[in-house]
């Protein structure tokens, strides 16, 4: 019996995907199903819709969600405004790759330690902890995620495009606007995705850099689970998931529209 089974087993390409499928099942599908089940259960494990009512009828949910989305949008915009010129300039430099490494270097240190250090610096500088410091922390943490894909995309653009544009009489600004910018859209899209989605769900940065005064959606989810409100916490997680999916869909749509070769680090 065993022999036959062994004979049948062949080391194909498929086999190598099994560990990943198992991982996916264990740590993605199973928790998702658990969250879905918990959303419909009350404290005594009875079927209920009360959790939905609690969440959707409370103005606090909208406030927290609104704050989180705004923080996400602002962080993404600031990262893009800072990150694009950096990526652009670095891609024109011969030592650009090395300098990009410098930007990524802080990421090798755990983000909690970095955030705590940032907090200590703010306190030493007598800066009042609040929304400003939280935004700084977010931008600081997620900037490399914006620069990396942008740098890869921009440095991958064929030089002959610029040369052709220049030959045809375009000045520097026009060359940038008509060639570099359109050709780097895919980088911008993946940069935005990499920054926006983690920021709307982050919680430790806001908690640490504002002493818990800035209360974002991630904090709210954490509090619910901590206080044994698994039902409401699960619904919040689902709402979060919906937002992640929606933003992913929008980004993909954009990306499909740009006829660029998708080229990014990730």
């Amino acid at each position: 019996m065993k022999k036959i089974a062994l004979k049948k087993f062949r080391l194909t390409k498929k086999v190598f995907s099994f560990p990943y499928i198992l991982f996916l099942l264990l740590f993605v599908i199973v928790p998702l199903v658990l969250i879905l089940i918990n959303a419909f259960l009350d404290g005594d494990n009875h079927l209920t819709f009360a959790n939905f009512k609690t969440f959707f009828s409370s103005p606090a949910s909208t406030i927290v969600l609104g704050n989180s989305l705004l923080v996400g949008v602002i962080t993404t915009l600031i990262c893009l405004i800072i990150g694009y010129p950096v990526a652009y300039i670095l891609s024109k430099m011969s030592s650009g790759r090395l300098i990009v490494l410098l930007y990524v270097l802080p990421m090798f240190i755990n983000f909690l330690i970095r955030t705590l250090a940032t907090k200590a610096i703010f306190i030493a500088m007598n800066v009042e902890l609040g929304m400003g410091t939280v935004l700084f922390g977010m931008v600081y943490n997620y900037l490399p995620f914006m620069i990396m894909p942008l740098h890869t995309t921009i440095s991958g653009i064929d030089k002959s495009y610029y040369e052709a544009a220049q030959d045809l009489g375009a000045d520097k600004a026009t060359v940038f606007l008509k060639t570099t910018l359109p050709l780097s859209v895919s980088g911008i899209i993946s940069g935005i995705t990499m920054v926006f989605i983690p920021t709307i769900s982050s919680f430790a940065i806001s908690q640490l850099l504002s002493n818990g005064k800035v209360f974002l959606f991630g904090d709210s989810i954490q509090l619910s689970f901590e206080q044994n409100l698994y039902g409401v916490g699960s619904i919040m997680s689902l709402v979060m998931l919906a937002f992640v999916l929606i933003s992913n869909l929008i980004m993909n749509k954009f990306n499909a529209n740009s006829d660029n070769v998708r080229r990014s680090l990730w």
Partner: protein
Amino acid sequence: MKKFSALLISAIALMICLIPLLAACNGQTSSTGARGADTLVIYNWEDYIDIGDNESGRNNICDDFCAYYKSVTGRNLNITYTTFDTNETMLTKVLKHDANVDLICPSEYAIEKLLTAGLLEDQAAMYAELKPQLDSLGVTLDGMSSIGAGDGNIEPDVMSVIKSQFGAVKSGDATLDMTRYMVPYMWGTLGILYNKKIISEEELEKYGWGVLWNIEGNEQLENKILMKDSVRDTYAAALFYMNEYDLLPEGYDDIASAQDLINITDDAMLKAAEAILTEQREHISGYEVDFGKDDMLNEIVYADFAWSGDALWAIEESYQEDSDYDDGCFLGYYCPTGTNPETGKGRFSNIWYDGWVIPTTVRNKLAAMMFIDYMCRPENAIRNSIEIGYTCAVAKDALASNDDVLAYIEDQEYDIDEYFDDIGRYPTINSSLGVMRDFGARNDALVNMWQRAKSGSGVDTSLFIILAVIIGAIALAIALYFAIQALRLRPRKIG
């Protein structure tokens, strides 16, 4: 689609297989330890026991207990010591039957909750069951208050409060006396840890709980206050403040004692508390549960809503050789009691107790009972108390009349009279101090209130401003570009 449903089915199947497996992982322990030794599994707060000191050669108190256990029973004992950081973490585990432990040390309301759920052992009954074995070993357990032989070594005042509040806890159809199920370990109050350089004693006397709302409008204190990131404690602070400043909702005008106030959780009170806590956000630095002591010591903040034990620990750490203050410490602890001189309303605070309980999952009953008794001995209680800063529940008289205890206090560089007369350590137990019960089904409403209070009254307007500025800047840059472009390309006159 077929693939997806197959995936889903296998996921569910996997889940069913895994749940018992995960539960088994949580079990942590087996009933017999290495080489047939007995085991004892303790589940306690973090930093809540004397773990010894390498420099002075003091042992971990658990090791000392193991030695004592061996000397009495002749058997080896392995102690598995696990910790929790909040009552809720502990409750979630124990209520879901995920903790196979012999001893737990939660707060009084959590004990009530466990008792109501029928998860605790009656220690008096257990004592009767173990009596023959104990007699043959020559052990008496007379330090314990739960075995039906008086208060043991425990402070009678502490016992009478617990008896009056938790003497008749409903569990199903039965009415149970919680004093038979727990032995108090540590107790304390809630109050204000303050920096003497910024807040004077007169100000504390004048404003009481108002200090945490900076009602005085002290500019140095503004945004330099920390509150507890814990719903029950912060809610209590809101109640005390509302009572002191006559802000309670209608119908609650003349509350005579803290006990009457502290357990009100109806909708009107929650709403009032939410408004008060939302208002407080404007004046405080933030919420903490762990870094408050350090921030006070580093003078990053000047007032912290604190538990007495944490406060006493911080005060000792704030000692400086060349200090302007009598005791050499720049931090102080104030537990507001009495009346507010301006409003004439009572100042109340919270008194809490943590105690040892034996859950129904107990395996080593003898060791569990002996361990509690060992903790109730004056010489051991003082070790724990001095190490962690909290007040032990062992009677003051029993401590003060024990020569070993007095020697130990002096050895740790305390003045004996000062140690026992410290009002922060040994407050007067009277009607100004109330015990917080388990809020039961109202707890969810309380947590929802806390969520709302923490989210603030509306979406942060500064975010809109920042967003508008960024978008404005981008628009300006684009407009500028086109303007320059237009200027450059404008038709020029020749000649």
